[in-house]
């Protein structure tokens, strides 16, 4: 198992390199450059050339890439061209907020989603199932930013339970986490329910009943366990999405975070910041997939057997 994890981590290195090339090229393919945001109105071509030279933007793309990569290897993400601060400082400020929001949202989707999915499966086709699945349909079709606004209106403005925006206190996390978490919950409910219905039709479940085991125990210890495999896959895929895709929610709740930082940097063509943000998101996706695979192996002995 340890050998497997080490091997998987090593396999991330080439993926990481490929991703870094793609990220670097994409950002440089976008028309415009950060210099436009820096030079004062009325400055001449010489001043522009000086700034371009200062940030190495006059060199060829491969050269610029290698300089960036060399910095990365040393742990140096460079200096933000427009913001004029070390990129690592900007990331260090944004990342904890994103991790808290993303991590908690993931926990909410997983916890609430699996419980509701199992309940819906238990009362399949009955009123409880239909109520849950109706709520799920609503939850997955509502745009998150709109849901966020509605929540602010109800819980902050009308009821006054939670702050409207910001990230100063833990209570300011509640609404954004619920907003993102609900969308994920809808997905997890559906996958859990379907996977459990499918697993309940397997042969071995019949034999479990024949052994005289109580149905509730069969559902929780056997059927649900089988259903967790696809659920874990879905959740692992969402890790990266939640870290970066939370940007609309971050904007609605005026929260700092990777998403907000990325959008701002993109608008200013601040290459080093954009590259660093995208790299963080790519790494989140890669690590998320890895965690998902490790969990699969923990659940299923057949997966473990294939690792050797």
């Amino acid at each position, binding site marked *: 198992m340890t050998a497997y994890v080490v091997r998987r981590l090593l396999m991330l290195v080439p993926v990481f390199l490929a991703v870094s090339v793609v990220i670097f090229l994409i950002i440089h393919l976008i028309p415009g450059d950060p210099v436009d945001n820096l030079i004062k109105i009325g400055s001449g071509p010489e001043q522009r050339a000086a700034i371009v030279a200062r940030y190495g933007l006059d060199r060829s793309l491969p050269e610029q890439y290698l300089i960036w990569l060399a910095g990365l290897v040393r742990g140096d993400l460079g200096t933000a061209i427009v913001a004029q601060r070390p990129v690592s400082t900007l990331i260090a400020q944004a990342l904890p907020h994103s991790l808290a929001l993303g991590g908690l949202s993931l926990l909410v989707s997983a916890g609430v989603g699996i419980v509701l999915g199992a309940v819906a499966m238990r009362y399949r086709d009955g009123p409880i199932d239909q109520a849950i699945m109706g709520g799920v349909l609503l939850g997955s079709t509502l745009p998150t930013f709109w849901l966020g606004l509605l929540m602010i209106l109800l819980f902050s403005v009308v009821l006054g339970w939670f702050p409207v925006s910001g990230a100063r206190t833990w209570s300011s996390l509640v609404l954004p986490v619920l907003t993102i978490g609900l969308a994920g919950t809808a997905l997890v409910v559906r996958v859990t329910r379907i996977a459990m219905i499918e697993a309940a039709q*397997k*042969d*071995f479940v*019949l*034999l*479990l*009943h*024949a*052994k*005289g*085991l*109580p149905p509730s125990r069969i559902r929780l210890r*056997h059927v649900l*366990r*089988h259903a967790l495999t696809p659920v874990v896959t879905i959740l692992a895929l969402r890790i990266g999405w939640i870290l970066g895709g939370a940007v609309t929610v971050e904007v609605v709740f005026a929260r700092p975070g990777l998403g907000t930082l990325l959008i701002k940097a993109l608008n200013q063509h601040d290459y080093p910041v954009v590259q660093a943000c995208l790299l963080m998101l790519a790494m989140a996706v890669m690590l998320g997939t890895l965690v998902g695979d490790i969990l699969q192996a923990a*659940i*299923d*002995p*057949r997966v473990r*057997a294939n690792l050797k």
Partner: protein
Amino acid sequence: MGLLEVDRLSVGIGRLTLLEEIAFEVDRGEILGLVGESGSGKSLTALAIAGLLPLIGARVTAGAIRFDNTDLTRLDESRLRKFRGRRIAFITQNPMTALDPLQPIGEQVDVVARLHLGLTADVARSRTIEILTQLRIPEAATIYRQYPHQLSGGMKQRVVIAMALAGEPDLIVADEPTTALDVTVQAQIIHLLTSLVRERGLALVLITHDMGVVAQCCDRVAVLYAGRLAEQQGVNALFATPAHPYTHALIDCIPKDGMARDSLTGIAGSVPSVAHFPPGCRFHPRCIGRQSVCETNVPGATALPGGVVSCHFPLNGDQRHG
């Protein structure tokens, strides 16, 4: 009166009747063979005895299943569970899919004794290893910790049998326990089941479509066709003087020594599906001895010296078709 008495049992799904008036008995130390082609209702009968019909959305519509003088069809689910796995054990058709792939073998056997006999984890464990050893599973202590995918088909079926024995049952219902196995392993498993019945005085309902297996180990045979009982007799009488043309045709399908190549016979046609059961005797479209009455009237049960047959024109020893 037998340990298990299936009395004019009918089973249905929705408005369809799948089984009609099935009747047979099994006593301790006895093996009843339940035979018939696919679709004749053998597995459904097994599920009915184990009280598992609700799982497939079916229910008992008439008749009784008396087990040790208790009518199982009248018990609610929680009281039925006290029988299931404890006094009535079930062995399914395909050992490849019968075990939970995510749980170690040992735990799957342990749970029966822990649940029904109230054994502690340690006692259940040593008992499981003992049962596995009795079933001639080599290195039972190692197998105990292994997962189903690490075992061969024959080994898995032995584990399924161990699960059945763990509750110290009085009756085992085995639904084609050897169909999915290699021929050599088939013989071992049949031998194993037979010796369990003889040594421990269990009752066994052995569902099979293999007439060879029936001849080899069963005491009595019930032949099902399209959801009805065609014939029930002691095994020797059944093979010597089959009374139902269907039984006769099934016996004719067994390959015999000295048969010429390509002379293997079959029964023309196939078992009709529930929605297309013919009127009258359900076997009449495939019966070579049919008369016009067979097409309209359902044959009643006629008593034989040691059994019963449902046919308007039952065969006797000297008047055989074919």
